[in-house]
């Protein structure tokens, strides 16, 4: 990754212009051709630096509900637990963390019923009883952009 790549990443995280030629417009701003920008973006996607170029949604505005679940899983059971949890498409983030609660995942569902049912299913399927659903009540910041 060089300086040009960094400029592209910073610019494209701010947002794609809504125009007939958004990549060309960004390229012109950064002093390169549209072809070069597209070539670099394609490479960074292949390398896994860019996960995707697309929309980031507000789940609540689409009628979805989401939560953060903290789970206390015995170390020898983590692999099996993660396999069950990750199979749900509504689980988008799942991390192992150091602490009494050692597995933390986010769950997004179509409504309260589905959310409650999913958590019950996970409890039943894994035998992990200590699962806490931590619902967000206030949002002070959401900004998953990373200055490069």
């Amino acid at each position, binding site marked *: *990754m060089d300086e040009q790549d960094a400029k592209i*990443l910073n610019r494209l995280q701010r*947002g*794609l212009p*809504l*125009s*007939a*030629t*958004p*990549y060309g417009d960004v390229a012109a701003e950064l002093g390169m051709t*549209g072809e070069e920008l*597209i070539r670099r*973006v394609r490479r960074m996607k292949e*390398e*896994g*630096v*860019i*996960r*995707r*170029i*697309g*929309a*980031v*949604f*507000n789940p609540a*505005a*689409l009628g*979805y509900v989401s939560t*953060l679940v903290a789970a206390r899983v015995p170390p020898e059971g983590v692999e099996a637990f*993660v396999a069950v949890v990750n199979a749900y*498409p509504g*689980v*988008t*983030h*799942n*991390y*192992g*963390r*150091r*602490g009494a*609660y050692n*597995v933390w*995942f986010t769950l*997004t569902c179509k409504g309260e019923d589905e959310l409650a049912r999913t958590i019950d299913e996970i409890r039943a399927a894994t035998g992990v009883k200590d699962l*806490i659903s*931590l*619902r*967000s*009540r*206030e*949002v*002070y*910041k*959401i*900004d*998953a*952009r*990373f*200055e*490069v």
Partner: protein
Amino acid sequence: MLTEEEKGVIRALQGDVPLVEGPFREIGLRLGMAQERVMTVIAGLIERGVIRRVGAVVRHGRVGYGTNAMVLWAVPPERCRAVGERLAAFSAVSHCYLREPYLEGRYNIYTMIHHRGTEEDCAALIDEMAKEVGIEDRLVLYSEREYKKTSMEYL
């Protein structure tokens, strides 16, 4: 409520915007919409807060943010908003929420921190945050393993 047009555009944008000279034209061709209409619908969804942004989603671990911590703070209920807003102002904080129920009866404010330095550097920043808001009681949970990280498909 979403119109059929909006649903089509959302489906197109929850995946990848095509990497071609005219991506909105291409999305329009797929959906049977003029590109101007595609852009108008996107602008409307942004305006209404359905879409937060259209742009690059970056893997932070791949661009130098190697240390990631979730920090839970035990904040007296009447101070949550003020403390939450001050913690949110730190540039290393990507997400800041008040969550319920309070974990262990007292941890309520959650901050996600992404740091370019070592765990020691990150710990120093967390100390600074604690001093800034005057809250000592906190749980620092470093990420050890990423088991899953994807984007939701809504429609």
